[in-house]
Each structure stands twice: as structure tokens, then as C-alpha cells.
């Protein structure tokens, strides 16, 4: 599904150059549930943006769905994003002047689906996420958890193979965070690859694979089996504080 080979990325800021990703090698299979962790500045968001073709890499090769992503025209990238990827953001990024249903239906508009049809589909997805009654509400009338569920519905509506979530629970309280994670888990159970960025251990521990970044490189990968250990280590960390 995803194959990263020696990915480098740096940002030019004025005179100085900030080397964010220093050679990332990573394989993610179809259907995995992965979290990317790391302290701020470790490059986790940058990595996710590159995966989602929102940003381009400087060096190395990136294969998504057996297709190399390199020097891609913005048109092609937009189409690929529309087909393959669904995004969930920390700040939800709903369009403020559209109601819940319209927000969810938007990706289908870019696919050229007729208004009536896409609204029906949008209602199905809202129903799935338990927000049917909120279809006509504007984003500013909803709670954070509801907004994030709208965003997830929007990410799902184009039937993507990959969901990329940048700190999806970052702006939510613990209970809502867990609800959102439950939803992501269900999505993953349907066979969709889910990759999320988080700095919260409890959130990360709900995924099946944790990639820890440190200074732009992969520090360690904690697999399914080791998660129990990870949980224990995390608890210990809490105790020492």
C-alpha cells in the first residue's frame, strides 16, 4: 500500500534550512492501523502530509498503491487524493458556511456526482456516525466530537483506501477522543488503512502499530504483539511523573 524509501524533506526558513525528515524507510500494508508518534518537531505531521500528497518530498521515492508519487501535477494529485485518501484534521477543517450534510457531500461534488444523489449518500454516512439529526446544522452549532465525526464522514464518503488523521483527538476531551478512536477502529475493521498522528500514548496504544519518530528518523516501530509492553511502559512513565 505505502512504500517509503529514504524520504528527505527540509524547509527553507529565511537563511536557515530546517532538515525535518532525514531518510524515512517505511512499509505500510493495506488494512493496517498505524499511529505515528514523536515529540513536536520530530517530523510526524510532515510525514503525514507527504503521505497525503499535501506536501512533496525532496529526496527518495514514495509509492502509494503501486504508483510513484513524484513531480505530480496538482491536478493529478487532487484526483488521487479524492480517490484514495480521506483526511481527518485536528481542527476538523469543516467549511463554515456549509451545513453538516453539504460538508460531508463535498468530495462527491468534485467527483461530479449529482446534488441529489450525493446528499442521499451523505445522509447514509451521517446516519452511520449517528449524526442524522444534525444534517442541517452548521459546524459552529456542533460540539468538537460531532464536528470530528462529520469530518470522518466526509473522509469516508469517497470510499478511500487510506484515512490520514492528523491529531484527530487533539482538540477533544478524553471521552470523545475514545469515541472517535472507536469509530476509526471500526473503519479499520472494514479494511481501510488508517494512519494517525498523535502525541498521546493512550490514543497510540489503541492502534495496531506505532511508529516513533525522533529527529526526523524512525526511532522504533512497536508492533501488535509488543503493544502490551508499550502500555506498561507508558503506565510506568505516568507513575514517574
Amino acid at each position: 500500500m505505502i512504500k517509503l524509501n529514504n524520504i528527505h524533506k527540509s524547509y527553507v526558513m529565511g537563511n536557515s534550512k530546517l532538515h525535518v525528515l532525514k531518510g524515512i524507510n517505511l512499509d505500510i500494508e493495506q488494512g493496517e492501523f498505524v499511529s505515528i508518534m514523536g515529540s513536536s518537531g520530530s517530523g510526524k505531521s510532515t510525514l503525514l502530509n507527504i503521505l497525503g500528497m499535501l506536501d512533496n518530498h525532496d529526496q527518495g521515492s514514495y509509492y502509494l498503491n503501486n504508483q510513484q508519487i513524484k513531480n505530480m501535477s496538482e491536478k493529478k494529485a487532487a484526483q488521487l487524493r479524492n480517490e484514495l485518501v480521506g483526511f481527518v484534521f485536528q481542527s476538523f477543517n469543516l467549511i463554515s458556511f456549509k451545513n453538516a450534510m453539504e460538508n460531508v457531500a463535498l468530495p462527491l461534488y468534485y467527483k461530479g456526482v449529482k446534488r441529489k444523489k450525493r446528499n442521499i449518500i451523505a445522509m447514509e454516512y451521517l446516519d452511520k456516525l449517528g449524526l442524522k439529526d444534525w444534517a442541517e446544522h452548521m459546524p459552529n452549532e456542533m460540539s468538537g466530537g460531532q464536528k470530528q465525526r462529520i469530518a470522518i464522514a466526509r473522509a469516508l464518503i469517497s470510499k478511500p483506501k487510506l484515512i490520514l488523521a492528523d491529531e484527530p483527538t487533539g482538540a477533544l476531551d478524553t471521552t470523545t477522543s475514545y469515541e472517535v478512536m472507536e469509530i476509526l477502529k471500526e473503519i479499520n475493521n472494514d479494511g481501510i488503512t488508517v494512519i494517525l498522528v498523535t502525541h498521546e500514548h493512550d490514543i497510540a496504544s489503541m492502534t495496531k502499530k506505532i511508529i516513533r519518530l525522533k529527529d526526523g528518523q524512525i526511532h522504533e516501530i512497536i508492533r501488535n504483539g509488543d503493544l502490551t509492553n508499550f502500555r506498561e511502559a507508558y503506565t510506568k512513565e505516568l507513575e514517574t511523573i
Partner: protein
Amino acid sequence: MIERFNEILSALKKNKLRSFLTAFGVFWGIFMLIIMAGAGKGLETGITDGVGKIAVNSFFMWTQRTSKPYEGFRRGRNWDFNNEDIEYIRNHIPEVKTVAPRLFGSWLSGNNTIRGDRSGSFNIKGDYPEWANIDPAEFPKGRWLNEIDIKQRRKVCVVGEKVVDEMFSKDEEPLGEYLKIGGVFYQIVGVIHPVSNMNMNGKTDESIFLPFTTMQIAYNYGNDVHMMGITAAEGLSASAVEEKVISAIKKRHKIAPDDVQAVGHINIEKQFKQFATLFGGISILTWIVGIGTLLAGVIGVSNIMLVIVKERTQEIGIMRAIGATPRVIIAQIISESVFLTTIAGYFGLFFGIFLLELANKGLESAAENGADIFIKNPEINLTVAVSCLLILIISGAFAGYIPARRAIQIKPIDALRTEN
């Protein structure tokens, strides 16, 4: 198409004030253009209509005191044209098509006209039938003076409409009645209604026209002639003929050839040329100012679109993250801009034309009440209006394109990160 339209409409509807402000600049631009072009056109129609029916290749001349001594005569001499001059011009200057001499009864001041117990003060003019060829008029009742009136020196007259109003009560029929003018009775044979509003020695409405020959005899004018209206032969310029006639007249009356004061004259052809230049100037000015205003409106739209795009950078980032291609985004922004400018332009056009129509109605009723109005039918033709709208649509597209280009040059991720 409908899909896109809905999308545009919802985006604009959710940002009412912004959309309104954007539209207002364009509205104002086209509104001003229409009003100014219409007013310019109205002025032109008003003035050309006023002189419109007067023979274009004609001129008028009259006598004034000489300003130079010549052949033993002192300067400041009073003189008049005479009947022989008319014969001379008719026979010796083939470039002249018609000569219409005229007498003014300037001595007849005060209440010069009497009918029963009514009396009035009017301009008395002695004319040849040819005068009507130079300054055409309508005759709602009766007729104009004719050859027989001239030959037989008949005591008949043609009167203006104001004369009828003052000398007759409403239900009286003026034709066939008599007026006593300067002690002589004349029978009314016609009522004159002017077509132009160019007046020689008093308004036509307030004038009484006598046969030229009758007037010469009745009031002791001898063979004096006060004024001549002359038209040039077909295809000749009035200016050239004017020069020739005036120099011949000067020679006959022993006036210095370089005396510019002795013969007063006005050349209709020259007047027309001046009007043409004036209207050309007015319309150029109108267009420069109008297009300037319009351009300012369009730049305003572009400017506001730029702000809008900046304001909506994050929204655009979201759209791109969920799969909007650059083309879709550009199309969206341009259509919003075109939609706004077109709607605003249409309203500007509509209200501009509406106001012109209103002004037209007002002017017409004012004209019917007898006001002196030099603006008539302020209007703008359809071609101009439609091309204005077309220019607007095109400039709307341009106004949207630059901000749209800026919008997609930002990387999606940077767009997403933009804080509002």
C-alpha cells in the same frame, strides 16, 4: 452547470455583505456610464432637434453700421439692403439657390396689434414664401404666405400660436378674422408652429408674418430689406457662397471690402460643424470618464476577490485536500466573480436606463408645459448597453483570474495551516 451555479450561489449567499460590497463598485461604474452617456446623447438630440430642420447649407445676413470710412463715406454709417440687391443676387450669383428677404417691424413697439378690445405686442416680420424653405415650420391651421400674397400685396397675415392665445378666446376660430397691426387691418390666413427653436428677432410663437411687399408699402420702408436668408445651390458649401454674396453686397453699397462689421451674418453650416465637434468632445469625455469609473469598479472587484481568496485560503486548502483540482478551484472563483459583476452590471444597466426613462418622462411633460428644454430623449442604444455588459463579464473573469491563480499557487498544506 446547475451544480456549479448552486455552489456559487451558496458561497455568495453565505457572505452577503462581502458580495454586496463587491457588486456595488461595478453597479456604480455601469450606472454612471449609462447616466452620462444618456445625458450626453440627450443634449445632442435636444440641440440638433432644435436646429435640425433648418437648411444646413444656408446662412443669414443683416445690416449693421459700417466700421470703416470708404469712398468718401464716413464710418458709422447706417445702411440697408434693398430690392435691387435681391434681384442682383438672384441673377448674378448662380451659386445661390434661394434668397428669402425679410423685414422687421422694429418701430412697431408697445401694443402694436389690436382686435376689438384686445391688444398685444408682437414681433412683426415681412416675409417671402421662400423663408419656409430655409427655416421650415408647420401650419396646424391655414397656410403659409404664397406668391399671390406677394404679387398682389394682399393684406393677409400668418400668426404664431401665442398670438392666437392672446387675441382670441378659446372657442374662437382665428382663420378669416382680422387683426389691426400698426393701423392696418390684415386677414389671418394661417397659424404657424415652429419646428426648430432657433429664433430670428423674437420667438416665432409671438410673431406675426406679413407678405414682404405689403409690409414695405404699408409702413413706408421704400425698398429697404433688413435681412436675407440664403441657401447655397445643391452640393456647394454655404461658407463659400456666403463670402461671395457678402463681397458683392459690399461693393454695391460702397462698403470697405475689409469692413467685417457692416454685414452681420450667421452660417448654419458652421454652427452645425461646431455642434458636431462639441458633441464629439462630450461623447469622448463621457466614455473616458465612464470607462474609467467602470475600470475602477472592476479593479475593486479584483481587489476584493483577492481579499476573499486570502480570507478563504483555508477553505480552498480543505477543498484541495478532499480532491478539488486546481481547475475546479479557478473555475469556482472566476464564476463567482463573473456572476457578481454580471448581476451587478445588469442592475446598474437596469437602474441607469430606468432613471433615463424617468428623466425622459419628466422632460417631456416639462416641454409640454412650455419650458425651454435643450435636453431631449436621453437614451442609450442597445448595442452600447450590451457591449458594456459584455465588457463587464470579461473583466469580471479577469478580476477573478488573478486571485484564483494566487489561490492555487499556495501549497495545499500551507493553505490548510493558514489561520483566519
